[in-house]
């Protein structure tokens, strides 16, 4: 059984919360569980964690929640604002509600789960993390995404995967439009396995039949002098 600590932001500053999570909590060893009460849309909660701990944020939170996360498992029981799990390195971040723009932007590793919708630019410039969105994503999601996997159970907005590098996107619903250099490719056995594994880890049914695979056509990888007017 985890040992529980409750921290109430009604009487604690964000800096005090984060200092506790950075310094005191890891020194107590493994198996701790922190409940953060009254987040009330505050920004920068549980940023920069680097310990194998569980943090539950009980309510709607603001911008940059659980940014730069390493090892920790952070769950937000509500919605989040912009840039949740920005630059996540490892561990996991779960949002039970919706996420605003730039969810998991630049994420290098770990798993980010948005149980409902994520807004525009979800997974922008992702560099190796995995993202599972239970609902839909907004425009320009996975823009310039370099590595990792974005799984969207619902629909994708305009310009999906614009200027994509080696990240791969799987969409279960409708795609409004693909961005430059993104293309649909046939789903292979390993694609179904990859989506099923991520859906299972995210806590969703591993039904992969309706998913499409979107990857880079790699036509923007090299500069073509003869086609300069097309850039």
């Amino acid at each position, binding site marked *: 059984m985890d040992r529980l600590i409750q921290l109430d932001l009604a009487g604690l500053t964000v800096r005090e919360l984060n200092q506790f999570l950075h310094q005191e909590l890891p020194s107590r060893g493994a198996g701790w569980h922190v409940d953060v009460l009254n987040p*009330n*849309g*505050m*920004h920068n909660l549980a940023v920069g964690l680097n310990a194998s701990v569980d943090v539950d944020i009980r*309510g*709607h939170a*603001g*911008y940059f929640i659980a940014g730069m996360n390493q090892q920790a498992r952070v769950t937000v029981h509500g*919605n989040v*604002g*912009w840039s949740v799990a920005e630059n996540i390195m490892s561990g996991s971040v779960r949002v039970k509600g*919706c996420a*605003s*723009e730039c969810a998991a932007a630049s994420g290098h590793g770990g798993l980010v789960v948005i149980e409902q919708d994520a*807004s*525009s630019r979800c997974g922008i410039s992702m560099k190796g993390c995995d993202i599972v969105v239970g609902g839909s994503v*907004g*425009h320009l999601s996975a823009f310039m995404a370099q590595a990792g996997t974005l799984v969207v159970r619902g629909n994708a907005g305009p310009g999906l995967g614009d200027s994509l590098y080696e990240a791969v996107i799987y969409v279960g619903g409708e795609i409004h439009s693909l961005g430059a250099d993104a293309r649909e490719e046939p789903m292979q056995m390993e694609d179904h396995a990859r989506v099923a594994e991520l859906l299972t880890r995210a806590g969703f049914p591993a039904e992969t039949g309706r998913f499409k695979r979107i990857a880079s056509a790699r036509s923007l990888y090299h500069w073509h002098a003869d086609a300069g007017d097309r850039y």
Partner: protein
Amino acid sequence: MCGIVGFLARDTRLRESLGEFVVPMLTCMGERGPDSAGLAIFSDDLPDGLRRYSFYTSVRTFDWLRFLEDFAAATEATAEIDVVESHAVLMTSATPAMVNEWLAARRDPIHLLSVGRKIDVYKDEGHPADISRRYGFTAFTGSHAVGHTRMATESAVSPAHAHPFTAGEDFCLVHNGSLSNPYSIRRRLEKKGVRFETDNDTEAACRFLEWRMREGDPLERALERGFDELDGFYTLLMATADKLVLVRDAFACKPAVVAETDEYVAISSEYRALAHLPGVKGARIFEPVPEQIYSWTA
């Protein structure tokens, strides 16, 4: 960066507390816009034939009673005035044309902020919390309100450059973002006789929309034209005599969040400005999507 807030009381009992709901929202959004702030508040109609004119003066010693006496004598209109700090509301039977003509002849150090049967506009330099306190926003009552906290990026910090902007009657607009073609819009409108008061980009959007409404477009149609005409980044929150209207541009890189309950609609740049509202935890909370027109009626 700037902050926007809006509140519309669906339950008429909340009208008595409008200022109490809005001031914490405005104060919280002071972190997004600490240099100046403004509030437009829509209260009950004046009796038939009367209008409200909100004024700002930078001259603290300005003699408003003398102003009122001169105005009443010159226009022979009924007139009352309420003065708080640098702000005055003139309630009169004089038409906007009469008031403007009279003002133009006098060159008083005052600035006309709004005209209408419901709207009062307050705006000034300083932190939103200080401005709210100085002008007694907490005591305000009414059906709906729109507020703005400004962090200036494209034109001067002054009361005139603060939002809300108004044009015509009972219409105002606040803006988070920046327009890249305000001057071309302005040049087009000026040829049609529209007059501008500042070099602020938001004023171009405000006057463009009001011009379209004068030409017969409903606000929603004017906004659809605006999606083609206004180039730049914007979350625009507007109010008319009985509505709040919200749009975001196609890029939607300027934030907004809406909380709706049976009792009220509350809008802000960030959720934290809504967190104090009663029943907000059970509200329908959503982020408005790009180029969709959201409208709520008081």
